[in-house]
């Protein structure tokens, strides 16, 4: 078990009468790559700025390794930031940018030179030390920004959507490179992004944020396969949500009616009663598209087909109008594989891969309202 | 962050900037004969001003000069800006540089060089020499104003017009000119005010045949106090305020 490095307790922040963070608790472990994921306005950037010290919380504490940082100004916090738009000093060379933090620590000249050279070599920019930031490409500027932050050997590195300004291909390369750097340096990375794919592929753990609250904290796999609520399910990856109803319960399994099928599933983490409506969640890659003449699954027809290279994505409309998203690995040799638009098919899914979520407060209220009417 | 400190500071500087102007306006309604004491409200200095025929003539001369200088410099300036924006040609950087130098040059340097030229070619100092001089120092300001507007202009609009079948000339008339209209008006107003305000250049290139307002004021205020100047200054202030608001209004409205 890794020990906690940074601990956030009951952290709140308001801008005017807008609540950005609402008594948030979070423990960040030493040496992990943790990602704050959420839509814009979820409070992830504010959280990062609070940790960095650019904003002060209205309530709550921030402790690093047992030291209370809440009132410490940013220049005295043993952590550094990689800014979204890099924030390189335009009047300084690459070398001077990277050396800036060490100069502020009043390190001897020799040590500065040696450490800067070292870190520039690590990001493969040793030949660019004399250049000015505006003479570098976006990817190179990005590397300087990282070098400038890690040269101080911070306990924690904060990265505020650092890849958002790069094009797709460069972003992929930098993702790999960031992972490598993090492993080599052993520094804890707190990474902010709104790109769920990026979050899943890079992190040890993901924090899903919405409305200033932690929606879920877990490994990428947990977050994707076992979402804690409808928001996480919808925000992380594509989802099919089917209405289900609890039929009966046993010790560690329950039986649920989904689209007219009776399925026996593992008992979920929440309390259920017989007859209670639940959400049955299936990822598009769990869905199987079958021959229309078979007797398995539900009948429907293909309404959309998208070729994605490695997968083939389809939208299938069931007879009751429900649309189902399916994503299948492409198999050129399968003659049955290529359905046309409008063609009838049957839809099934891998048994046991369903994930159950309870109805949420708003939905229950809505249902009762319509029942009254 | 404390906000009262910067706020107090800003207010203080604004007060210092406006105290002389307020004093001027207040004293223009002063009934007292001597300049420094308050003798009750009166419009006598405005009356005196309008009864001073030499002053009134200088006023008309100045207005006419400012009007023509602003118009000519706007025409030439706008064409220059369009050419700088649209065409590649040899010496473009030199042209740009020359305009910049004219703008930055101390007025007095421009003034004596023009005086030397006019005397050399034997031009009678008067309206024409004033006009040439004023257009020259207004020109770069107009070019800059129009260029700023053009640089924020969506490059694909002229191309779209050409694509839809407009000739170069028609495109200029129907797309470019309307787009830079606010800048033309702003540039014109700027030229007008610069011309009306100029003392330094006019001192050198005007002759007795064409007396203009700033020089008239100059000769009055060099010695002692002339309460009519308070009245005149107030009128000029109101006039420039109206012009300035007009130009700001045009610029702001065009951004919407």
């Amino acid at each position, binding site marked *: 078990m890794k020990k906690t490095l940074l601990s956030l307790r009951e952290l709140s922040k308001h801008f005017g009468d807008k609540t950005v963070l609402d008594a948030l608790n979070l423990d960040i472990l030493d040496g992990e790559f943790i990602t704050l994921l959420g839509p814009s306005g979820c409070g992830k950037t504010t959280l990062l700025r609070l940790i960095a010290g650019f904003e002060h919380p209205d309530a709550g504490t921030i402790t690093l390794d047992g030291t209370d940082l809440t009132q410490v100004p940013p220049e005295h916090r043993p952590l550094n930031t990689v800014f979204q738009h890099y924030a390189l000093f335009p009047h300084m060379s690459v070398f001077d940018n990277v050396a800036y933090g060490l100069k502020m620590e009043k390190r001897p000249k020799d040590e500065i030179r040696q450490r800067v050279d070292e870190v520039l070599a690590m990001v493969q920019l040793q030949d660019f030390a004399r250049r000015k930031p505006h003479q570098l490409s976006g990817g190179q500027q990005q590397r300087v920004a990282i070098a400038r932050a890690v040269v101080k050997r911070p306990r924690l590195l904060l990265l505020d959507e650092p890849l958002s300004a790069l094009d797709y291909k460069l972003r992929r390369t930098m993702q790999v490179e960031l992972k490598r750097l993090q492993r080599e340096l052993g520094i804890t990375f707190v990474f902010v992004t709104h790109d769920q794919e990026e979050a899943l592929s890079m992190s040890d753990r993901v924090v899903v944020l919405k409305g200033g609250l932690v929606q879920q904290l877990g490994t990428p796999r947990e977050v994707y396969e076992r979402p804690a609520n409808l928001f996480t399910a919808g925000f992380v990856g594509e989802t099919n949500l089917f209405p289900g109803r609890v039929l009966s319960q046993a010790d560690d399994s329950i039986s649920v009616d989904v689209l007219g099928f009776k399925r026996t599933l593992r008992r979920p983490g929440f309390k259920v009663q017989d007859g209670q409506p639940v959400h049955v969640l299936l990822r598009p890659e769990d869905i199987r598209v079958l021959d229309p003449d078979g007797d398995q699954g539900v009948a429907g027809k293909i309404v959309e087909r998208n070729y994605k290279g490695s997968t083939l994505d389809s939208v299938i409309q069931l007879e009751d109008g429900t649309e189902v998203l399916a994503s299948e690995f492409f198999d050129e040799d399968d003659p049955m594989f290529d359905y046309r638009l409008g063609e009838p098919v049957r839809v099934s899914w891998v048994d046991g891969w369903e994930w159950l979520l309870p109805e949420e407060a708003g939905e229950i209220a809505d249902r009762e309202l319509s029942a009254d009417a | 962050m404390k906000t009262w400190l910067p706020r107090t500071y800003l207010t203080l500087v604004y007060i210092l900037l406006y105290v002389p102007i307020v004093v001027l306006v207040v004293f223009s309604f002063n009934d007292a004969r001597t300049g420094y004491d308050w003798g009750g409200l009166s419009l006598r200095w405005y009356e005196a001003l309008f009864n001073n025929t030499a002053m009134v003539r200088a006023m008309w001369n100045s207005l006419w000069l400012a009007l023509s200088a602003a118009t000519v410099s706007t025409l030439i300036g706008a064409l220059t800006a369009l050419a700088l924006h649209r065409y590649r040609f040899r010496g473009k950087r030199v042209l740009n540089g020359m305009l910049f130098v004219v703008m930055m040059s*101390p007025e007095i340097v421009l003034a004596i060089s023009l005086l030397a030229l006019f005397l050399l070619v034997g031009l009678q100092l008067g309206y024409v020499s004033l006009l040439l001089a004023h257009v020259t120092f207004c020109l770069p300001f107009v070019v800059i104003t129009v260029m700023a507007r053009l640089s924020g202009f969506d490059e694909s609009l002229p191309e779209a017009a050409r694509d839809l079948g407009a000739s170069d000339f028609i495109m200029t008339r129907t797309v470019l000119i309307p787009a830079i209209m606010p800048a033309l008006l702003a540039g014109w107003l700027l030229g007008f005010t610069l011309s009306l305000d100029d003392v330094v250049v006019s001192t050198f290139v005007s002759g007795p045949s064409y007396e203009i307002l700033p020089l008239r004021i100059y000769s009055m205020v060099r010695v002692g106090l002339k309460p009519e100047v308070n009245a005149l200054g107030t009128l000029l202030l109101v006039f420039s305020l109206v012009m300035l608001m007009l130009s700001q209004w045009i610029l702001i409205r065009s951004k919407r």
Partner: protein
Amino acid sequence: MHSIRQQPFKTAVLALVWGWLLFLVLAPNLLVVGASVMTRDPATFLSLPLNLDAYRQLFDPLYLDVFLHSLYMAAMTTLICLLIGYPFAWALSKVARQRQLLLIFLLIVPFWTNSLVRTYALKLILATNGLLNKALLSVGLIEEPLQMLYTEGAVIIGLVYLLLPFMILPLYSVFDDLRQELLLASHDLGAGRLATFVHVIVPLTLPGVLAGVMLVLLPAMGLFFVPDILGGSRNLLVGNVIKNQFLDARNWPFGAAASILLTLAMALLMFAHKLSKRRLGEEGA
């Protein structure tokens, strides 16, 4: 390539503006250079023997004193404008956007108002029996009216008053462009307020400082009507010398040489400004 026939508009416009600039800017300036190396002539202003007498005359102790005094007043004016204008522009850039527009408007209103009239208004305040003395006497800060008008101080006050907006506007523009992120980055890397100011804010606002200095220092040497109205006969600017030499003393070579001095000062400042901008990579590297 387009031939001239195909682009009559372009040719006409370029001919017009080049003609104007060559005839009314380049030629006159060459004339001034020429005049500066000729000999003074009471009848025709200038006569032939070419010499550098005028430049030698610039270093005549009598004029050298005037020039140095003028330079001193211009430098003081610039310094005061910078000291007032730098924090002013900084504070202005922090104000909410909507109010900023109004404040900038208020800043340029005086600039659009006749500068002679505004200089004259200062006279009402600074005179021996003017408003400032009256105010000071009435609150008992002074016993006797102070001599403020016709002093070096009055000239500097007048110049600061006329030129302050020219210092503030370029400074405001650099502060407005200053990205908040850079200041945060500096703090993040361990720099306190002072270190951030010295290492980040000052270098990044330097082009604005130099532009402001250029826009203030040069006019502060040339605006001859300010000393005429506020300064009396002892506090002259280079501008007064040039004007007197041209219009009164009819010593053209000397006036021309003095004006070339001003032009050289301008060239120097423009060069410094360009360098400072290039350092930031704002112009082609």
